[in-house]
């Protein structure tokens, strides 16, 4: 066994040229083959790649889809986000658990099937959903859960769980997924039909500076959420000098779509990946890069073969490779698979991940445009941004600016989910009101809308006339609709669970502060809150926001801050002062008990019950 393991790892490492920066690929391959990266495997990998053992262990322990202990041959990962919870996640989870005879986090005694929960897998418009190895199963019910377990027991082939394919390229021979695109509004830019090669050939017909000028004239801003001006980012990278002796610069497409409630990049990659690849090529031309990386989240691994096929096709058509369309400009793309970490959507964490490291964000400066992947000037763009670039080149900046609002040109893809009749993807011009969107989505009775995912803003009905644009309700595209019967505090708790789970733990306020925030919210839900809690929640949130090291921590208190502002009564109704002046938060029973009471919440925050 040990000899077999050693030789298999040797082969895997040879497959990446024994390049330590491909450690994540190696670990993923070992995980797939041996269902874990064991202690022995960790030693072998470290030896083969010539890196400290700690580098391998640190990496394996960081990513949710890698494990030290063996997983089952089939791993069922139930998507656990607030939208799944609205649509019966608890019942589905319990149905899987009963059918398998195990709890989430466990593997059946025969080693066949592991049941787990995972953060949002990008299927909120068809929730509850799950990954069965790489296969996505959607619209789950308790019946369907039992059927899936029965079928797996029968044949252990996740691919056979897919009975009917979804629409569009979901039915492509290299995808074969039951996922649906649910495109509700096909706008003029991102989701528009394209003629392969048009954008790239137009771009390389002019100078790189002219390409950047067009992107600037179009006033294109990044679609991932932060809204940084794309042309400016490209110009920094164009003017940046690679480190000594190197001419390398990089274009990275951030397809690590992990913000709960967002799934528009999935639809782009399914239907308009050609635009994404064209956008990367144009970006490469503009900044002087010859290499691109498409970082694909592991949850979308079912799209990997299809995307590789598209890359091959484009090479065949002379649109990727050493001499694009016969010119001296060369550019090629490789796919980097993630391994389950929301934080890798942060651009410097993503760069670390591409380098085969833990997805801890980096200190800035230097910014990636100066020193990014392998220390070279690097731009990181969202797939939707890159699609916009192709359209700007195809039709000119003026056409692009004709849509949207003055400060927010063009269209935005919105992922709508939750309590509405028409969940799915909408490409609509920037500047539309939230109310207009809700009307289109059939959400007339919406009582609260989370714009921008957990790190965004919870909007109350008296603010539904606010506009979706960078200067008002900025969003990466997640629109989660909540009806009048939903408990705002439960939603907040769900979001805080998410941030605690996904924090990298590098800096104090995010690592510790979010646990405290989550537990305070839980305490209020458990009717042990006091009026003073509200001010303390606010102060704590402000500190986390002001002092955290990256965007995750700087936005993680937003669920608390925005609901304290817009839904304050939801808190006030749940807190009261003890008439005798005792601290209501003090739980006598659990404080004198040596064991955890059965109804105490499991402590996933590294806490143990007090002795």
């Amino acid at each position, binding site marked *: 066994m040990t000899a077999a393991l050693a030789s298999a790892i040797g082969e895997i490492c040879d497959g990446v040229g024994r390049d330590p920066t491909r450690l994540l690929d190696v670990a993923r391959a070992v995980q797939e083959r041996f269902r874990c990266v064991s202690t022995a495997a960790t*030693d072998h990998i470290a030896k083969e790649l010539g890196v400290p053992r700690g580098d391998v262990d640190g990496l394996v322990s960081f990513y949710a889809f890698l494990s030290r202990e063996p997983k089952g041959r089939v791993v069922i990962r139930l998507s656990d986000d607030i939208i799944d919870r609205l649509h019966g996640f608890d019942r589905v989870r319990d149905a899987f658990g009963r059918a398998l005879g195990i709890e989430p986090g466990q593997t059946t005694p025969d080693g066949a099937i592991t049941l787990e929960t995972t953060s949002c897998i990008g299927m909120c418009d068809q929730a509850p959903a799950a990954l069965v190895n790489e296969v996505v199963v959607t619209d789950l019910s308790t019946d369907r859960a039992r059927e899936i377990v029965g079928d797996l027991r029968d044949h252990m082939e996740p691919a056979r769980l897919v009975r009917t394919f979804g629409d569009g390229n979901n039915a492509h021979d290299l995808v074969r997924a039951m996922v649906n695109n649910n495109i509700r509004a096909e706008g003029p830019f991102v989701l528009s039909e394209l003629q392969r090669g048009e954008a790239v050939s137009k771009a390389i017909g002019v100078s790189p500076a002219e390409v950047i000028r067009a992107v600037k004239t179009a006033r294109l801003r990044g679609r991932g959420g932060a809204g940084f001006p794309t042309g400016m980012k490209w110009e920094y990278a164009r003017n940046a000098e690679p480190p000594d002796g190197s001419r390398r610069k990089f274009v990275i497409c951030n397809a690590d779509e992990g913000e709960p409630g967002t799934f528009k990049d999935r639809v782009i990659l399914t239907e308009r990946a050609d635009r994404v690849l064209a956008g990367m090529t144009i970006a490469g031309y503009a900044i002087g890069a010859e290499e691109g990386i498409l970082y694909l989240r592991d949850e979308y691994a079912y799209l990997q073969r299809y995307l590789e096929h598209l890359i091959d096709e484009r090479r065949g058509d002379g649109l990727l490779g050493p001499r694009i369309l016969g010119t001296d400009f060369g550019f090629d793309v490789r796919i980097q698979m993630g391994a389950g970490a929301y934080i890798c959507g942060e651009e410097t964490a993503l760069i670390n991940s591409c380098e085969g490291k833990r997805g801890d964000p980096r200190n800035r400066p230097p910014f990636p445009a100066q020193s990014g992947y392998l220390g070279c000037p690097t731009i990181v763009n969202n797939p939707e941004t890159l699609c916009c670039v192709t359209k700007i080149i195809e039709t000119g900046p003026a056409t692009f600016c004709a849509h949207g609002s003055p400060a927010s040109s063009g269209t935005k893809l919105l992922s709508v989910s939750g309590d509405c009749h028409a969940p799915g993807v909408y490409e609509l011009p920037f500047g539309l009101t939230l109310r207009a969107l809700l009307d289109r989505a059939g959400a007339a009775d919406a009582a609260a809308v989370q714009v921008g995912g957990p790190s965004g803003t919870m909007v109350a009905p008296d603010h539904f006339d606010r506009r979706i644009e960078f200067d008002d309700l900025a969003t990466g595209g997640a629109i989660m609709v909540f009806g009048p019967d939903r408990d705002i505090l439960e939603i907040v708790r769900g979001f805080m669970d998410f941030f605690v789970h996904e924090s990298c*733990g*590098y800096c104090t306020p995010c*690592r510790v502060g979010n646990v405290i925030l989550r537990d305070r919210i839980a305490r209020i839900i458990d009717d042990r809150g006091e009026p003073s809690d509200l001010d303390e929640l606010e102060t704590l949130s402000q500190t986390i926001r*002001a*002092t955290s090291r990256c965007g995750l921590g700087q936005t993680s208190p937003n669920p608390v801050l925005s609901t304290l502002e817009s839904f304050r009564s939801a808190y006030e109704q749940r807190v009261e002062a003890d008439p005798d002046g005792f601290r209501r938060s003090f739980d006598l029973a659990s404080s004198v008990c040596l064991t955890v009471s059965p109804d105490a919440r499991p402590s996933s*925050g590294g806490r143990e019950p007090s002795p």
Partner: protein
Amino acid sequence: MNAPITITIDGVEVPATPGQTILEAADAAGIYIPRLCYRPGLEPYGGCRVCMVHVAGRACAACTQPVSPNMVVENDTGELQEQRKMIIEMLFVEGNHFCMFCEKSGNCELQALAYRFGITAPRFDLFFPKRDVDASHPEILIDHNRCILCAGCVRASRDLDGKSIFHFTGRGPDRRIAVNAEAQLAATDADVTDRALDVCPVGALLRKREGYRTPVGQRPYDQAPIGSNDQPEEA
């Protein structure tokens, strides 16, 4: 290129050199910015967030932010001091810190900062985490209960000792220091002369049988509060 520049910290003009960080310039000028994970000679880490300052209204870590000409830095403001205090409290509740039983007492930067900030008891509930002690090595002790994840040992072992004995494992609240072996420190090539043992700001990484060489009461922070001008600076 390296012509001296001037920055302003709390209204005081301070000379600085391009390439310096705000913290380095402040130290050189004798202005104290509270910090925990910063160590002279080690790559800045930016993890504890105690050294947060404001530059033109924007928050940044003084240990990682380079100076620029005419930069205006706010350091000693009520808002920043409150935030720093809260971060220190977070570190106290996250681990198991029992100063009265700790051999590092009086020589511990976390404890000293608590005194400086007037923290008598943290305002948050203690986590009481279950953490391990690794006493496997004959001369070195790791007590994870007291670790504040400052990465001092990680950086020093990697960059000063060339050994990479320490690394981070896990993420989020489960992030921990681990050693470069299957289980314990005794299986690594850690040595009592390693410089990594000199940088722990708390009592998490210690040489055995040395803790009480200096009697309690005569230790650095027993003499003067942390951040005093006459504070002896350790290696």
